[in-house]
C-alpha cells in the first residue's frame, strides 16, 4: 500500500491529450488519476519545473544477454534505460543463443525481473537461429512474452520468408520488424554512399538499398494484411514511400533514431568507428525529410537503436569495427537538440513519439497516465544543461559519438509500477 503524490509538474499525456500543470496520484502500482488527492501520502514528489509524462518506451534495444555479456547485460542495459527515462524497452533477439524459442524469451523476462530496473519486452527471431530458412515457433514465442518478430540487424532478405512471416503473425496480431536494406548492395560497406565515401575511399551503402527493401516490404504487407514495422529508416525516399502506403491504408509503421537526426556522413572523416552505424549516417537532405516525417506522423516513433560494444571491439580499424552506438542515455537530450530547440516539435509531440507511438506498434498496454494504468511515469527536467560523459553511463557500452556534447534535457525521476526506480544525481 504505497501512495505517491507528484505535485506541481507539467503533466503531458498524449494518449489523453493532456498538457497542463497538475498533480498526479499513484497508489499500489497504478495511476489513480490527475488532480486526485489522498489523505495519506507515503511519498510526495515536488515536480515544479518538470515534465510528468508516461514512462518512455524504446522499441529497439540490444541488451546482448545471453551470449555477449562483455558488451552489456540485461541488468546494465535496463539500468541505462532508466537513466534515459525509459520504463519499457523491447529487446532484440540477436543474442547467443538467438531468441527463437519460448524458453529464450522467458529467460529475458526473468532476467529483467531479477534486475528490477525497467520492463523488458522481448522481440523474437523471425527465423530459427536467424538462419533465414524456417520460421521460428512464433506461437510459442508469443506465449513466452515476445511482442514482435525480427531479424534484428539482419534484413529478412528472402521475400518468400517475409511473406510467410507477415501472414503467420496475423494470427497473433503481432508485427514483423524489418531492417530495410538489400544486403547485396551494402556488402563490405561502412558508410553512406555519396561524396564523403568517394572522398574517403570507403565502400558505400546507397540510399537505394533502403528504398528497394521498403518497396518490397510494403507490397508484401499490402498483399498479406500483416503488420509491418520498418526499423531505423534513414532516407528521404523511405519517408515518402511510407507516407504513401499509410495513405492507402496499409498497416506499416516506422521509427527513426536521434543520431540519424543530428549527424551526417561527413563525421566519418574522423575515421572514428563511433560514427559507424547501420543504417549509415546520411546527408542533411535526408535529415530534413526524416524530420518532416516526424512532424506529419509518417514516422511513428523514436528509438535508441542501443548497440553496446565492449571497448576492444570498437577500438579497431573502421572496417573491422561492428556497426552501432549506445543510445539509451542520450535519446532525450538529442531529441531536444534536433527537434525541440529548432522548433520542429513541441514537448507533447515528442513525448508521443516516445510513448504512444511505440505503444501502438508494440501493443503492450503501456504509455498512458489514464486511471488504472500501470504507474510507469517519467519526470523530465527539460532545461537542465549537462555534458555527455560516457564514463557516467549505466550502460557497459561507452561507444558513443556524443562524448563532450553540451546538451539540455534529462530524466530526473523514473517510476516503474509505482516504485521509484531512478533518481538523477544531478
Amino acid at each position, binding site marked *: 500500500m504505497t501512495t505517491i503524490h507528484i505535485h506541481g509538474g507539467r503533466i503531458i499525456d498524449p494518449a489523453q491529450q493532456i498538457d497542463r500543470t497538475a498533480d498526479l496520484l499513484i497508489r499500489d502500482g497504478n495511476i489513480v488519476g490527475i488532480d486526485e488527492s489522498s489523505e495519506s501520502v507515503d511519498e510526495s514528489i515536488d515536480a515544479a519545473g518538470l515534465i510528468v509524462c508516461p514512462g518512455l518506451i524504446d522499441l529497439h534495444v540490444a541488451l546482448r544477454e545471453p551470449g555477449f555479456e562483455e558488451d552489456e547485460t540485461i541488468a546494465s542495459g535496463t539500468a541505462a534505460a532508466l537513466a534515459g527515462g525509459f520504463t519499457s524497452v523491447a529487446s532484440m533477439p540477436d543474442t547467443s543463443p538467438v531468441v527463437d524459442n519460448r524458453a529464450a524469451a522467458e529467460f529475458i523476462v526473468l532476467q529483467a525481473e531479477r534486475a528490477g530496473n525497467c520492463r523488458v519486452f522481448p522481440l523474437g527471431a523471425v527465423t530459427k537461429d536467424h538462419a533465414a530458412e524456417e520460421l521460428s515457433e512464433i506461437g510459442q514465442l508469443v506465449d513466452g512474452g515476445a511482442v514482435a518478430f525480427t531479424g534484428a540487424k539482419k534484413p529478412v532478405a528472402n521475400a518468400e520468408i517475409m511473406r510467410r512471416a507477415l501472414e503467420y503473425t496475423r494470427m497473433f496480431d503481432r508485427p514483423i520488424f524489418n531492417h530495410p536494406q538489400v544486403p547485396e548492395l551494402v556488402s563490405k560497406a561502412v558508410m553512406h554512399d555519396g561524396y564523403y565515401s568517394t572522398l574517403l575511399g*570507403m565502400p558505400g551503402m546507397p540510399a537505394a538499398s533502403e528504398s528497394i527493401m521498403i518497396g518490397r516490404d510494403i507490397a508484401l504487407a499490402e498483399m498479406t494484411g500483416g503488420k509491418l514495422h520498418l526499423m531505423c529508416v534513414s532516407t528521404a525516399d523511405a519517408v515518402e514511400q511510407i507516407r504513401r502506403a499509410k495513405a492507402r491504408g496499409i498497416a506499416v509503421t516506422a521509427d527513426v533514431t536521434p543520431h540519424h537526426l543530428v549527424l551526417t556522413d561527413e563525421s566519418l572523416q574522423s575515421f572514428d568507428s563511433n560514427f559507424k552505424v547501420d543504417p549509415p549516417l546520411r546527408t542533411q537532405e535526408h535529415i530534413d525529410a526524416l524530420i518532416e516525417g516526424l512532424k506529419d506522423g509518417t514516422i511513428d516513433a523514436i528509438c535508441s537503436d542501443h548497440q553496446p560494444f565492449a571497448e576492444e571491439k570498437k577500438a579497431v*580499424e573502421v*572496417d573491422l569495427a561492428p556497426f552501432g552506438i549506445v543510445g539509451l542515455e542520450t535519446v532525450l537530450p538529442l531529441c531536444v537538440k534536433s527537434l525541440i530547440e529548432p522548433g520542429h516539435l513541441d514537448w507533447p509531440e515528442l513525448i508521443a513519439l516516445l510513448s504512444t507511438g511505440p505503444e501502438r506498434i508494440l501493443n503492450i498496454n503501456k504509455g498512458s497516465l489514464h486511471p488504472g494504468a500501470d504507474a510507469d511515469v517519467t519526470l523530465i527536467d527539460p532545461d537542465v544543461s549537462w555534458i555527455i560523459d560516457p564514463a557516467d553511463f549505466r550502460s557497459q557500452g561507452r561507444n558513443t559519438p556524443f562524448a563532450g556534447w553540451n546538451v539540455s534535457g534529462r530524466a530526473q525521476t523514473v517510476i516503474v509500477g509505482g516504485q521509484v526506480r531512478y533518481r538523477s544525481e544531478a
Partner: protein
Amino acid sequence: MTASTGPQTVTGLRWTRRHLLGLADLSAEEITSILDQAEEFKRLAAAGETKLNALAGTVVANLFFENSTRTRTSFSLAAKRLSADTIDFSSSGSSLSKGETFLDTARNIEAMGATQVVVRHRTPGAPHLLAKSLGVNVLNAGDGTREHPTQALLDIFTIRERRGTLEGLTVALVGDILHSRVARSNIFGLTTLGARVIVCGPATLIPPHIEELGVEVSYNFDDILAEADCINLLRVQFERQRGGFFPSVREYAHLFGMDGPRLRRAKDEVLILAPGPINRGLEITPEVADGGHSVILDQVTNGLMIRMACLYLLNQQNQ
C-alpha cells in the same frame, strides 16, 4: 662509404606537420616543399652524395599489413640513405586473425624505439588511428582505397621535372578510379597545384560524386587522348574487386588499354606514367611501357627521393 654531414634543408620550406596522412589537406606550398626537398636530394645523389646522416640515431619502422614490394623497398632504402635504422614488419593477414590488434602491434613497434612509422593497411583511416594513438611520425604508404600520398608526390615530381610546372597541364587518370588510392591522392595533389584532371575508365569503376573533387569525367579514352599532356595508367586492382565491374580483360584492354595506335593519336610530348606494378598487355602494351614517352622508371627513381624528403621533413618536426 663515409656519410656526409647534413643538414641539407632547402630554404623557404613551409612544412610544420608531424604526419603525412594524405594530400587532401595539404596546401600548394606544403606539396611544393616536399617536391623541392626531394629535388635537393636528387641533386645530392647526382653529385655522389648517396649516404646522408640526417636521420642518424632514428628508427624508421615499415609496418606493412598489405603486400607491397616496391613501396616498402623504396621507403626502406630512403631511410637507409638518411642513416636511420629500419625495422620491417609485414603481415598480410588481418590483425584480428592474428589475435593481436593493429594498434597493439603498432604500440609494440613504438616501444622498440621507432621514431617514424610508415604504414600500409587495407583500411582507410588506419594511419589516422596510429597518428592519434602513438607519439611517432606517421607516414601513410597506402590506406585501402583512400590515399597513397608518396605515390602521387612522385608522379607529380616526375611531371614537374619534365614540364617545370603543373599549372595548366591536363592530366588524365585512366582505369580503376573507384578502388584507386593513387587516383585520389593524384586528384588532390594535382588540382591543388593547378592542373586540370580528367578521370577516365569504365562507368562501374568511377565512383559517384567524383566531379565534386574538382575533376572531369570521361568514359571514352579515345575522346580525351588528344587533350592530355600526361596520361597516368592505373593498375586494374583485381584483388580489391568485389567482381563484375567489367565483362572481360579483353574488353577492358580494348576500351582503356594504352597501345601504339592510341599513343600515336596522343600529343607529341605526352608523358606516360604508371604507378606499377603494371599488367603488360592490359592497361599498357610493352611498346608504350618501354617507349620514349614512358617515364615509368623515372617514377621509381623519384619515388626514393620523395620518400627521403618526407622522412626528413617529418623528422625535422621532432627536433
